[in-house]
């Protein structure tokens, strides 16, 4: 299996204080990688650096053979990288429909963009019901669906998902996890999944990494991570 994303010695942060201290990470194509760790471990910062919202001070990011360091954020989506930021990513003054269309604006294949839109409505039935409501009227769970739906309209190859379970009912979380697995199997989607909900993340992921204080401290198959009692106790707290 070839690596879709290869990160080497990545250092990034806000102002003078680095949050990531030399992160090395390889994500094989068509797999789901869970990024776990306590609050402040640098999980969100890692995703923000990968999607270009934050620029690394050191290190390399190679995606599908190209260097991403100088790529503007708005180009990422054209390369097939979709970032669903934590609890955000919904334009509150636009309607659900407009938000979803936003996700496909850049695409040249208009017919397929429309098809992708229909698919998202089929996947998330609540969105279809609230199609013409502005984003600020949506519940937290609906916003999360909308943010994810908008990413999917662009038919990404790499999905950077930040805390998709935030504010969602356990049943909806389970649906989203199942959806990720289906997309991986049918379209070869690669996912970087940041989650506080370790159990549900490891239930869907192929592999997992554990971050602590801006470093990756463990990497293993999801099943082994689930079974590693010490690791769970020290870093994941259950």
């Amino acid at each position, binding site marked *: 299996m070839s690596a879709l994303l290869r990160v080497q010695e990545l250092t990034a942060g806000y102002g003078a204080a680095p949050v990531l201290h030399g992160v090395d990470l390889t994500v094989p194509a068509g797999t789901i990688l869970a990024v776990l760790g306590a609050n402040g471990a640098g999980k969100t910062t890692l995703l923000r650096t990968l999607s270009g919202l934050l620029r690394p001070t050191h290190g390399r990011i190679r995606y599908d053979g190209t260097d991403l360091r100088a790529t503007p954020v708005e180009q990422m*989506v054209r390369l097939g990288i979709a970032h669903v930021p934590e609890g955000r990513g*919904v334009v509150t003054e636009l309607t659900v429909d407009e938000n979803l269309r936003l996700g496909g604006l850049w695409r040249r294949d208009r017919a397929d963009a429309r098809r992708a839109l229909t698919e998202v409505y089929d996947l998330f039935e609540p969105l279809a019901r609230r199609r013409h409501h502005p984003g600020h009227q949506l519940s937290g769970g609906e916003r999360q669906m909308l943010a994810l739906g908008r990413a999917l309209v662009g038919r990404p190859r790499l999905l950077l998902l930040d805390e998709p379970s935030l504010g969602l009912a356990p049943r909806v979380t389970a649906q989203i996890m199942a959806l990720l697995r289906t997309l991986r199997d049918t379209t070869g989607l690669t996912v970087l999944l940041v989650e506080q909900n370790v159990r549900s993340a490891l239930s869907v992921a192929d592999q997992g990494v554990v971050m602590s204080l801006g470093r990756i401290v463990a990497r293993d198959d999801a099943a082994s991570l689930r079974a590693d009692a010490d690791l769970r106790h020290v870093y994941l707290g259950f």
Partner: protein
Amino acid sequence: MTGRTWLRHLAFLLPAAVAVLALTYLLPPFRTYQLATVGAYLCVTAGLTVLTGLNGQLSLGHGALMATGAYTLALTQNALAGRGQWTLLVSTAAAVVVTTAVGAVIGCAAARLRGPYLAGLTLAVAVVVPSVTSTFESVFNSDQGLSVALDPPPLALGATFPYERWQAWLSWAGALLTLFLLANLVRGRFGRNLRAVRDDEAAARLAGISVARTQVSAFVVSAACAGLGGALFAVLAQSVSPGAFPLTLSLFLLMAVVIGGLGSLTGAVCGAVLLVALPAATHSLTDAVHVSPAVAQRLEGNLPLAVFGVVLIVVMLALPGGLASLGRTLRRERPDP
């Protein structure tokens, strides 16, 4: 954008054009001149509401952009004087082009600035541009300004055709064209990008929208409208001078679009009407009340600003969405049967 939206906007536009045409025949000359002024203001407020309302970029410098358009028209028109009616079209086009270019430069700087810093930059533009006229006195003739050599209305319209009616036609042709183009523009993809960038820059970028490019385009479009409005002002006044474009003009423009309803073209129409109607109303008020000439003179300059301020406060309290949201608010507040 579909062909249907396009046609729907045209269906709004044609009755409006007929109404304006009828008004120019019904109103007395001075009222016709005021109508023409509304048209010129409308170009500017429509462009400003797209920039500030839909894209969230505050501009305190649109008066200066109007001045740019007005002076360009005056200089071009005077250089081409006496060659026929077509020169007006050329000089208006020149005014729009030059103002668009200036807007692009300001827009590039503005795209790097947010909030109070953007307000500061555009404020600086509003202050600097009129003073350029004294720096290059030989071209702009300092405070005296320039007169604009305009041809009389085409002879085909008859020898006694009132000049005010001709001015109103010119200015409303510009205003309706501006409204039509902007309505089509903001209904489609461009408008959606503008609003996405206004609400959440990170989300817009993650959806593949270039924030800087969108902000500069908004400024360019808005500046083009202001340039056209300024050019029409020069045509109406038949002269240009820095005194016609003070800082308060920029503030009035901004207040007008806020009172009308930010981001709404209907609101821009309300704002343009207010810009003409409120000063006129305060003027007739000071005429009606008998005060000493000294007090009257002091009121003359300041009362419209005060009235505008009060109207702004009242409208914001009663109708946060501006005058354009009046119909919607009334409908919502009517109790269900």
